[in-house]
């Protein structure tokens, strides 16, 4: 078995016991990148020189007997909307094509002894469900390179599946970690809103955005989550609380666990094979001692509309900062200040970003605010209440992550609504601020992965991880694609 094929939890032990060096592991990952990146296109920026330097530093510290974190020396890929000091951070946009952050996101400071492999492709400003909205290039699904990897963290999911990074960071505003994790057959966790600092994450919709980990196994995801979680004074929405060590406390035990199956997530529009696969996985957990109950979340049908109003409204405000003055792209020719703003923004943003800014501007504009934004916020409140009342009776809610398996590149690009429908099972979680994890639960007749989403009450990540871990132990781990 090559080093790049191994999980972070094993590699962490091997590095600690000096069976391998971080330099050897980092070289193995970069050799892998050289071999398969041409087929996958997961990265926007590779940083081999600094990665090798960092790996050597970690090895030196370990040789001196210094105490380091469990992820020390592990090669990690970072989504390109997370600020990395001195390393280009583009958000896959022409607007930030040459932007080099002068500071680190809080999560990067927390992960200060990892080895950063590079920056991963995404939909521009995290707006999209297929990574086709990247200004630079589309990323391909490692299970079938003619298909999309999902989005917006498509590079983060594809890199893990193709073993071009041991684990990665993504961000999730409406499903952007879980949905690509499902399409690429990896594990992805969207943490509770407020548990991971957003400082240094380039904002899309601030009340919904959350950074989270992707990995090949549940324990790897738990390890990264333990490292990034916690209060941050630089993020006013960050919660004050103590968190468990998710990886150390991982237990494959579902005895007495109450699983809810919301009928609204198994209706029309969800592929029958996907439905069946999720139900089969739930049955496996039932055999291990979990109890299963059908539940109802009646406002689910309104979640997608409410999500597009709230997220676009916030995006239109957040993206107002890109004006060609302080950083980023500026149009070459213009006549006066307003013309400079308009040309800079029209040339610098792609179509989907413009569409969302336009929608957001519209719903917040005079005369329409009550009809759209306020209505959407009230629906959001109701969705939160419905989840809260269900979590009095069940511990975990199981649903499909995405309605179908990965579609072909170019298949949905002409129809925004069809593209938005990809997020129907995931947006409710962001709307309600809940944690959720996606794990592979089947492979269709083309060999494409199907994901199961497990949703929990606020700050119940440990229970979600334990449930996912129990399923992973039952099936003996998840498949890697052949590339």
């Amino acid at each position: 078995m090559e080093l790049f094929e191994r999980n972070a939890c094993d590699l962490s032990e091997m590095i600690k016991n000096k069976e391998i060096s971080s330099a050897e592991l980092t070289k193995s990952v970069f050799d892998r990148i050289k071999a398969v990146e041409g087929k996958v296109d997961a990265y926007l920026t590779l940083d081999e020189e600094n990665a090798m330097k960092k790996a050597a530093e970690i090895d030196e510290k370990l040789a001196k007997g210094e105490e380091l974190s469990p992820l020390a020396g592990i090669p990690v890929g970072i989504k390109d909307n997370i600020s990395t000091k001195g390393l280009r951070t583009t958000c896959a946009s022409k607007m930030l094509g040459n932007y080099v952050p002068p500071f680190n996101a809080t999560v990067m400071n927390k992960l200060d002894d990892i080895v950063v492999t590079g920056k991963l492709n995404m939909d521009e400003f995290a707006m999209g469900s297929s990574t086709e909205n990247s200004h630079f290039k589309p990323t391909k699904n490692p299970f079938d390179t003619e298909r999309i990897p999902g989005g917006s963290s498509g590079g983060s999911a594809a890199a893990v599946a193709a073993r071009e990074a041991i684990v990665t960071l993504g961000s999730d505003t409406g499903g952007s970690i879980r949905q690509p994790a499902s399409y690429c057959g990896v594990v992805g966790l969207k943490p509770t809103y407020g548990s991971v600092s957003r400082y240094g994450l380039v904002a899309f919709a601030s009340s919904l955005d959350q950074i989270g980990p992707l990995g090949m196994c549940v324990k790897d995801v738990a390890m990264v989550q333990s490292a990034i979680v916690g209060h941050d004074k630089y993020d006013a929405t960050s919660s004050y609380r103590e968190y468990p060590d998710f990886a150390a406390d991982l237990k494959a035990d579902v005895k007495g666990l109450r699983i809810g199956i919301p009928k609204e997530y198994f209706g029309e529009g969800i592929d029958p094979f996907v439905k069946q696969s999720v139900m089969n996985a739930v049955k496996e957990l039932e055999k291990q001692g979990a109890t299963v109950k059908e539940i109802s979340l009646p406002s689910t049908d309104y979640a997608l509309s409410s999500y597009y109003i709230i997220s676009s409204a916030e995006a239109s405000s957040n993206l107002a900062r890109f004006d060609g003055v302080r950083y980023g792209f500026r149009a070459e020719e213009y006549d006066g200040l307003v013309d400079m703003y308009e040309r800079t923004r029209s040339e610098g943003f792609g179509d989907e970003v413009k569409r969302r800014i336009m929608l957001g501007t519209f719903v917040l504009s005079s005369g329409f605010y009550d009809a759209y934004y306020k209505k959407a916020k009230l629906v959001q409140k109701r969705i939160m209440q419905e989840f809260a009342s269900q979590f009095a009776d069940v511990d975990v809610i199981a649903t499909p992550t995405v309605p179908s398996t990965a579609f072909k590149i170019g298949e949905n690009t002409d129809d925004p609504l069809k593209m938005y429908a990809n997020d129907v099972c995931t947006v409710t979680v962001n709307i309600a601020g809940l944690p959720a994890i996606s794990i592979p639960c089947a492979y269709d007749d083309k060999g494409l992965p199907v994901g199961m989403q497990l949703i929990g009450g606020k700050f119940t990540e440990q229970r979600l991880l334990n449930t996912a871990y129990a399923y992973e132990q039952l099936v003996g781990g998840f498949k890697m694609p052949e590339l």
Partner: protein
Amino acid sequence: MNIDIKHIAKLARLRIEDDQLDKFESEMQNIVGMVEKLPDIQDEMTLDPDNPMILRKDVAVQDKFTRQELMQNAPQVKAGCLVVPKTVE
């Protein structure tokens, strides 16, 4: 409902080319059609009790970055200042 794409574009400081107007309008119509299905809920908006959002003191942060670091990404700089088109006559 008619959506005045040019007006919204002006508010958003975006320029939509004439040949793109129809496409934008029909896409926006579809999206607005989707969001118009939202129910009327008689309720009040409230803040999330789990996220009280305690704001930090409004004090200027000093010495965290140098002027040069902060200006390294600016498209046009002259004598340590950001260059913008003339705004007053």
